[in-house]
């Protein structure tokens, strides 16, 4: 090598060295990754798609002259995959077991275990309930009903196309058919189905058409008449708010709400900007539907939405799920998939969408592909050769390292429950905590009271969130050393001080303390007359620290 360098020009030599180094690095990273994920040389069909993800992502690394960060160690990866799949950090027991496990395919096995864990159903129910009806339950909507629908859907791993079909065509009592709550939440105003049109296209199809209600879209291909054509599918949708007489109170009170089928046929009318009235007939992206009264328009819409080899509902779901794991999707924003928004990895996006459809819209299968792919298994630490890969500042996502995400309020709450053992006390810890959790969450939510039902959260890394963590009841309880609490059991349990410090770090952060961290805590123990307060305050610090509040 050195002799050949001397014989060639310096520039060529450097380039050669660089190429050699890149190849070496590729080989190194790949073999480390393969070891870590337990990939063997005989790929199964699932492995073929994972391989496709890896190949295409690697291609963009090459094209952009960046290099991936190292593979995440087990501790880092484990915390991440728990948060993403089941919505909370792993328990101390799970961490200790996983870190000690010598099985080469343990990452694969963990993903299999997590997607069959009750936490999977709970997490995805939370995510889709929030997306469909908001964090703050709108008037005359049953959050329980919506949750029941999604619990069953994700619990049975129902195909996504069937779930969408049920949501769009839902009819009946809002608790008996929980799917109706999606429509009810978009029918807060008597707005001729404007909000449900905007929400359905955006949430399930990744298309932003809300502006076309009033005018042709300035950038994408949607025209104003298309908005109203789409809207006409929802015009047979009626809502009945039932009331009943409360004998105790001696007056009428709210009872259940219901989605009913209304009589409607023919066109809808809308106004152009110049004041001209126009008509629109039911038409799904170019496919006309009989406008007479014998057509059940929502049935037709749902059928058309779920038809074909690569319908928008598959594309949008893949994009959203990818973004859930990686922090960024193939488009930014994830719910605006149109010609004017660049796609980071077009071929991969298409392929994953196609494979998702071929898999029978299998959400768990999609998670396997993503969670076991090479990019998801990298560390979240950036490296010299990829520091410019920072989509948070507007760069195109290259997935050279995993992007840091703040925990959602739900993830934080559930993680605190795990870290404090609260879910193990009582028969039905999770169910019991559901209403408490909702109450806790709502303190952060503010609705704007506008027709689009938009809301914002103060759980956004600002001072109120810090105060909640520092002084709020949840963390106060966590460090209180009540009998039965995690901290109590840990301190009463086996081991010396060092081991107890280590187990506290494993509990909160899923990793061992570093040497300086250990030394610093020991110093407090030596100097403080009351060692209990040192352990309490260490636990407080671990639950309050940046590393805890981020998914990385």
């Amino acid at each position: 090598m050195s002799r050949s360098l001397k014989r060639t020009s310096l520039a060529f030599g450097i380039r050669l060295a660089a190429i050699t180094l890149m190849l070496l690095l590729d080989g190194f990273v790949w073999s480390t990754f393969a070891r870590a994920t337990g990939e063997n040389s005989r790929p199964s069909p699932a492995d073929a798609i994972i391989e496709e993800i890896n190949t295409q992502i690697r291609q963009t690394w090459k094209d952009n002259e960046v290099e991936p960060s190292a593979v995440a160690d087990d501790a880092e990866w484990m915390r991440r995959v728990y948060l993403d799949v089941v919505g909370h950090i792993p328990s101390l027991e799970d961490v200790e077991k996983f870190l000690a496990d010598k099985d080469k395919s343990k990452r694969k096995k963990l993903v299999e275990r997590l997607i069959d864990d009750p936490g999977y159903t709970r997490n995805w129910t939370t995510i889709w309930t929030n997306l469909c009806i908001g964090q703050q339950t709108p008037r005359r909507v049953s959050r329980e009903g919506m949750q029941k629908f999604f619990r069953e859907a994700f619990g049975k791993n129902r195909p996504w196309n069937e779930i969408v079909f049920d949501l769009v065509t839902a009819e009946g009592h809002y608790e008996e058919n929980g799917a109706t709550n999606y429509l009810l939440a978009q029918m807060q105003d008597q707005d001729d189905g404007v909000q449900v049109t905007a929400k359905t296209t955006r949430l399930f199809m990744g298309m932003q058409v809300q502006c076309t209600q009033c005018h042709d879209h300035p950038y994408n291909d949607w025209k104003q008449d298309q908005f109203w054509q789409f809207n006409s599918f929802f015009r047979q949708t009626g809502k009945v708010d039932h009331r009943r007489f409360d004998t105790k109170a001696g007056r009428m009170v709210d009872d259940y709400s219901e989605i009913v089928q209304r009589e409607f046929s023919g066109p809808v009318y809308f106004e152009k900007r110049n004041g001209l009235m126009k008509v629109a007939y039911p038409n799904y992206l170019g496919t006309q539907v009989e406008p007479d009264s014998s057509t059940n328009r929502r049935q037709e819409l749902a059928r058309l939405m779920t038809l074909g080899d690569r319908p928008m509902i598959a594309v949008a779901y893949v994009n959203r799920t990818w973004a859930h794991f990686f922090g960024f999707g193939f488009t930014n924003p994830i719910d605006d998939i149109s010609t004017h928004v660049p796609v980071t990895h077009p071929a991969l996006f298409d392929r994953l969408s196609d494979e998702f459809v071929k898999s029978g819209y299998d959400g768990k299968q999609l998670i396997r592909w993503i969670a076991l792919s090479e990019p998801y298994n990298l560390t979240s630490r950036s490296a010299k050769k990829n520091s410019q890969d920072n989509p948070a500042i507007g760069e195109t996502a290259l997935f050279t390292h995993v992007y840091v995400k703040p925990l959602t309020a739900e993830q934080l709450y559930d993680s605190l429950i795990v870290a404090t053992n609260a879910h193990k006390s009582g028969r039905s810890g999770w169910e019991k905590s559901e209403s408490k959790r909702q109450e806790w969450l709502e303190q952060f939510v503010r609705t704007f009271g506008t027709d689009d039902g938009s809301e914002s959260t103060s759980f956004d890394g600002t001072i109120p969130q810090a105060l909640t963590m520092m002084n709020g009841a949840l963390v106060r309880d966590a460090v209180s050393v009540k009998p039965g609490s995690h901290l109590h059991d840990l301190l009463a349990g086996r081991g010396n001080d060092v081991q107890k410090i280590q187990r506290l770090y494993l509990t909160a952060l899923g990793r061992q303390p570093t040497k300086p961290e250990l030394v610093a805590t020991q110093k407090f123990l030596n100097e403080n007359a009351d060692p209990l307060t040192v352990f309490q305050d260490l636990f407080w610090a671990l639950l309050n620290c940046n590393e805890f509040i981020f998914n990385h």
Partner: protein
Amino acid sequence: MSLITPFGMSRRHFVTHLAASAATIPAMNFISHVKAHAAELNKKQKACILMWMSGGPPTIDIWDLKPESKNGGEFKPIKTRGSMQISDQMPKTAAVMDNLSLIRSMSTREADHGRGRYYMHTTFIPNPTVVHPAFGSVVSYELASKRNNLEIPSFISIGGGGLSPGYLGMTHAPFLVDASGRINNTELGDVSSERLNQRLSMLATVEENFIRSDRGDFGSAHRDIYKKAVNLMQSKQMEAFKIDQEKKEVLEAYSGNPARGGAMGGGGQFGRSLLMARRLVEAGVPFVEVDFGGWDLHANVFDTLKNQRLPALDAGIAALTADLKQRGMFNDVVLVWMGEFARTPRINQDVGRDHFANSWSVMLGGGGLKGGLTIGETDKDGLSVVSSKIYQPGDVWATVAHALGIPLDTVHKSKNGRPMKLANGGTAIQELIG
């Protein structure tokens, strides 16, 4: 009441309080104790109060009436102390309009709530590759560093939400509080300050590890927010949030007639928020946003305006203007009134007005800006601007920046290094600053 003694306390009381708290707080590494000169509140400090009409207010029924048009609606124009006429539902405000000016030639094109909220707050059209700061964050960024004795956040949003500090960083994020002024979880409970210090010291060790782990600036932003939270927990300036220290008559003046959506209704909320805003500005906070919602009036617009929104709005604007003048603060505090857009001149079948951004009004006053003026003009039906110049939020905020003494050629950098002109390069409105 002297403005040197804050919030109805005597100076003596305030100083005693300081001494007492200083005695219980030993030498601390993390908690900045209240500085002795904190009481020297500087009434000449510049500030801005944004009255944000969430939902999009029908300015055709408030500031720019069209009594001759089929779009005119139910209200009639009345004379004011300024050069303009405004709605007959705003009599108290009419009496102070010599201090306030109207821009009647806004034309802002974003008629979606989210996009309009973003555009009017940031002066930039939404763009997925960069998050622009709300202008409150810009003011906080420019003015807070010069206010060393300010211990509470420099951008406070009362009842608002959904705003981002963007590329200016989390320390300039709005601090959200509701109209009650109650801030949860500021009390340490039975935790001693020694324990708090032990906790914070341990926290610093773990945080340092993450900050140095090549994971971007998330870690250090978190540390900075905690510093601010600890400062705030210890600060006497938190008194500024406690409007119940004000005299009952003052609160009543801000809230208007309770029988007409006043003290107990939406009016109470708006009035309380404005009063809190005045107290915060007095304490040195450079930017306060007051969110007053309920304007998304797709139906039943006139009844709602007459019985709920406008009595509260009228009382609030009039009381704030008078109060600031009486305290000698009016020439230092800029008032801005706007929403994400306005509402259609055409009255719809539900007697409502829909979203409309093509021609509408914004109100500006105080901070040394000229009052009593009208800038621009709309056509006889309110459908478009007929005067030669139309205004964008960048022009409004450039005017505010001028009044606050922030140079208009200021340039910030987005996180990927792109230069961002202050107020998107808008220019101050000459007639108002001239």
